[in-house]
């Protein structure tokens, strides 16, 4: 499938927190688009990223590598990363590979935003 035919990466901001939605299968094509979106959000001043896996059934190794890259960039920007809405299989995978040492997990987006409640939060939200 060509990139042009893919839906844009869903995201929205809650103050300085960006919520980015991973797609159903996190592979090279979708992973790179999510990576770009996260970088864009960080460049535009976001201090925390919530990556929601509510639509994600499977993460392959490129997906893992890209998520590690996002974590790296976020760390360099002094930003926090929270993964939310993971299914059990993906939680087990991330725990086994050690990704959970670098990010917090939240049951859902609401819990993720709650745990970031100390971050400046404005009512004006943007979406892409």
């Amino acid at each position, binding site marked *: 499938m060509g990139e042009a035919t893919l839906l844009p990466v869903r995201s929205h901001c809650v103050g300085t927190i960006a919520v980015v939605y991973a797609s159903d299968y996190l592979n*090279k094509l979708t992973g790179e688009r999510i990576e770009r979106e996260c970088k864009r959000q960080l460049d535009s001043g976001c201090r925390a990223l919530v990556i929601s896996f509510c639509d994600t059934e499977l993460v*392959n*190794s*490129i*997906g*893992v*590598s*890209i998520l*590690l*890259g996002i974590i*790296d960039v976020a760390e360099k920007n002094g930003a926090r990363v929270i993964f939310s809405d993971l299914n059990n*299989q993906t939680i*087990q*995978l991330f725990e*086994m*590979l*050690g*990704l959970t*040492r*670098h990010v917090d997990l939240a049951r859902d987006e609401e819990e993720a935003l709650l745990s970031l409640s100390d971050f400046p939060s404005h009512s004006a939200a943007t979406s892409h």
Partner: protein
Amino acid sequence: MEPTIQKLVHSFGSLADLGQEVASTGDFDEMVRTSLHLLLGALAIRRGALLECESSGDGLECRAVWGLGEDFAPPLTIDPAEKKTLLTAARGISLVYTDAPEVFAKQRDNLRGQGIEMIVPMVVRGELTGLVLLGGKASGEPFSTDDFEILHAMVRHIGVGIHTHRLLGQLEQRAEENRRIYEDLRTIYRDTVKAFAAAIDIKDKYTQGHSERVGKYSEIIAREMGWNEEAVEGIAIAGYLHDVGKLVVERDIINAPYRIDAKASNELNRHPAAGYEILSPIHHPYADIPLMARHHHERLDGRGYPDGLKGDEIPLGARIVTLADSFDAMTTDRPYRKRRPFADVLDDLRANTGKQFDGQVVVAFCRAICKELEGEIKERRVLKMLGRNYIESEQIIPALKELISELNSNNPPAAAAGV
């Protein structure tokens, strides 16, 4: 799922994805970059780089980098001792740690500073194809023996991909060289043919340039008949060489400044068969060159020589050369006569079509001349060969069109050969 089983499933998935990536024939740089991604993702390694060894020499080229800073300076060379250490490591399925003194000692601080902890050698058929520099695992755990196996297996896969890419590159290079050699040979062949044609024409002081012109007229006719470029090139060669048999005819007969007698005529008429004998042993890159030389004096009515062939028995190429040859004979001065006015030439074509000349060949030639006269064809090759002031366009164009129309109504267009 048991963690061990889950790890196995994840590793298998990575290997399967890598196999697909390595087998892809797309962008090589993208293949290498994605392969590195897959390798790092298989064990959640946070950073790495893939370096390719030069096929010969000690150079290293950084092909892909992930998770390393912009100031990352990969090693650019590798010496034989370092290669040996890495080859030994590959044999033992072990990794080389960057704090080991044997490999990249000078870059050690830079590599460690960038978080590079180890080197995985990439060995294909006993040769070091490249190497992968790796940082630590996201889990912070040390690499296990299982990790070593997975890394070596994946790096071998990538190595095969790089090796295959190199082989394809070499093949393409050789194919390109062969194409060049082939083109050179064709040029040499064409130049040799032209030299031959010049040699033939030099023997006949009254018809200098005749062979070259017959070659060009034949080419023009065949192209107008819709022949493909390869066949057009072949017929041009046949035109250049059609009189090669004259090399065995006595110079006095060829250069006789009067109409020759029957005996001399018989001697001269040997030249098509002699030409065939000369050309047959040569492996020409085009079909039927010797036959076209042999049959360029045949006539459709069977009164030609050397074989008295009739109609379609005469190869179409020979029928083209026949017209080109006769046309040049009529439109150039000979020792015993001046060239004929173009209107007379058209009359001759009209009178002899179906007897000596093939109707569709005549039509094609007339059409090509018309196109030149009307400016439809920019390159006026026929007109240049005929010289200035020979053709009066205003009178000749209607005459040509009339002849074309007559011949078309008498001879419906035949299927083109060599198309």
